[in-house]
């Protein structure tokens, strides 16, 4: 597996290029990405926001805004736990996209926000089972914001969080059902 992180030298933030590579290699292996896969992580260090985008799955190309890797307690410094959380979630979604049985989620940018949050929940739930923090309550709060603050919404969250081998159709159905009940 070859992991490439650009830029090699950060000038606007105090990120350690090699540390990002090391975390990416470790998490990619633990998630189960194929060992012969090339991974390119393109960091836009000029933007302190945290949007991410999977540009391609072979080779894997991931665009990341610098804020996604930034320690919220130390401005401009790298938060290695956040790197692992962010990349772990995206690597699971790459794994899903590469699976023929998963279905077609379309481009990240075109997804319905509720579906996107539901898929994130499913990905981070698996990451947590690998031993990463996953920040369960943070994810639950993000899910509730999109699907409602109700027992029904929480049940949908739990199905995704503990889910295994879900398809895109199943994820969107769980999400849509929760959203539909929200407006009742």
């Amino acid at each position, binding site marked *: 597996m070859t992991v490439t992180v650009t830029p090699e030298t950060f000038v606007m933030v105090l990120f350690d290029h090699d540390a990002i590579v090391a975390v990416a290699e470790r998490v990619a292996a633990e998630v189960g990405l194929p060992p012969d896969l090339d991974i390119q992580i393109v960091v836009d260090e000029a933007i302190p926001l945290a949007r991410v985008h999977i540009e391609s799955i072979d080779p894997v190309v991931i665009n990341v805004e610098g804020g996604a890797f930034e320690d*919220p307690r130390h401005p401009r410094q790298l938060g290695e736990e956040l790197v692992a959380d962010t990349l772990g979630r995206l690597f699971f979604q790459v794994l899903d996209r590469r699976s023929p049985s998963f279905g077609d989620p379309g481009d990240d940018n075109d997804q319905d926000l509720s579906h*996107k949050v539901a898929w994130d929940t499913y990905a981070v739930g698996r990451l947590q089972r690998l031993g990463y923090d996953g920040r369960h309550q943070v994810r639950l709060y993000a899910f509730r914001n999109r699907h409602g603050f109700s027992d029904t919404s929480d049940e949908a969250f739990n199905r995704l969080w503990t889910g295994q081998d879900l398809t895109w159709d199943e994820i969107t159905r769980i999400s849509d059902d929760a959203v539909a009940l929200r407006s009742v």
Partner: protein
Amino acid sequence: MKVNLPPEELARDGRFIRTALLTRALDPRVTAVPREKRSPRVPLSPELPGSSEAARSLMHGIFTGEIQAMEGAGRTCWDFPIGDGPADAPYELKLDMARQCWDEARHCEISVKLGDWMGSEIGEFGEATFLYEAACNPDPVLRLTGVNRALEGLAIDVFNTMREFGSRAGDPVLEFCEDWMLADEVTHVKMGSDWLRRLTATDPERRARALEFQRIVDKLFSIGGARGEEEDSPIRLARRFRELAGFDTAEIDEIAQLSTDAREELYDRQDRAAATAAESPAGGVT
């Protein structure tokens, strides 16, 4: 017990990390962002991607502000002798500050519970101590304009924005927490307005100094104009609640204008710094 405790001596446990204001102010991603990279401003809304993260960060900032507001009000009870002179504080003012201290302590508890609900940990985000620093002014009237009228006024705008955020998201906990704290903040700002007028009734120069200090704090902490009345202002100026807190229309108009000015000045600085950076081989960043 010390009089006028400096900000660096505030008691915090190991979970809190202090972020110097200059660290943020000199962040090249803020100071030198080229126009094409500048993210568009949008009102804070649960319909936006990343809004729950933005809400968590903002509410943690409010939480640390509540701690400092409690500390500041407590200091004002202690730092001045009782009296009516320019370096004194009337007993009734101290009673109001003691009441505010109690309110802020309750807000801290509310904020901790709200953080649990939203998934935030205490100390997850850096703490800037600007509110307490404004509460270190040696003149009690300037403390009241800097903290109660300017920064607690900003808190009114934030609480009102976040109350609406909670309502739109259907989050009953956020909505109620904000509504209850907002009610107290209106009272605190009103205390500032009332005491400003009372303590400077016969001293126009002192009143002018106090209002100038308020203008400086208002402009400095309009978050680069993020708090304002423009269509895309992330935090809306809460006119009605400010009226209830003792601001007249001209004063509210002035705050709105200060926010607009702060935004234009920020954009000008960014343009100039980006141009300088573009001419520098190292990107102008050290």
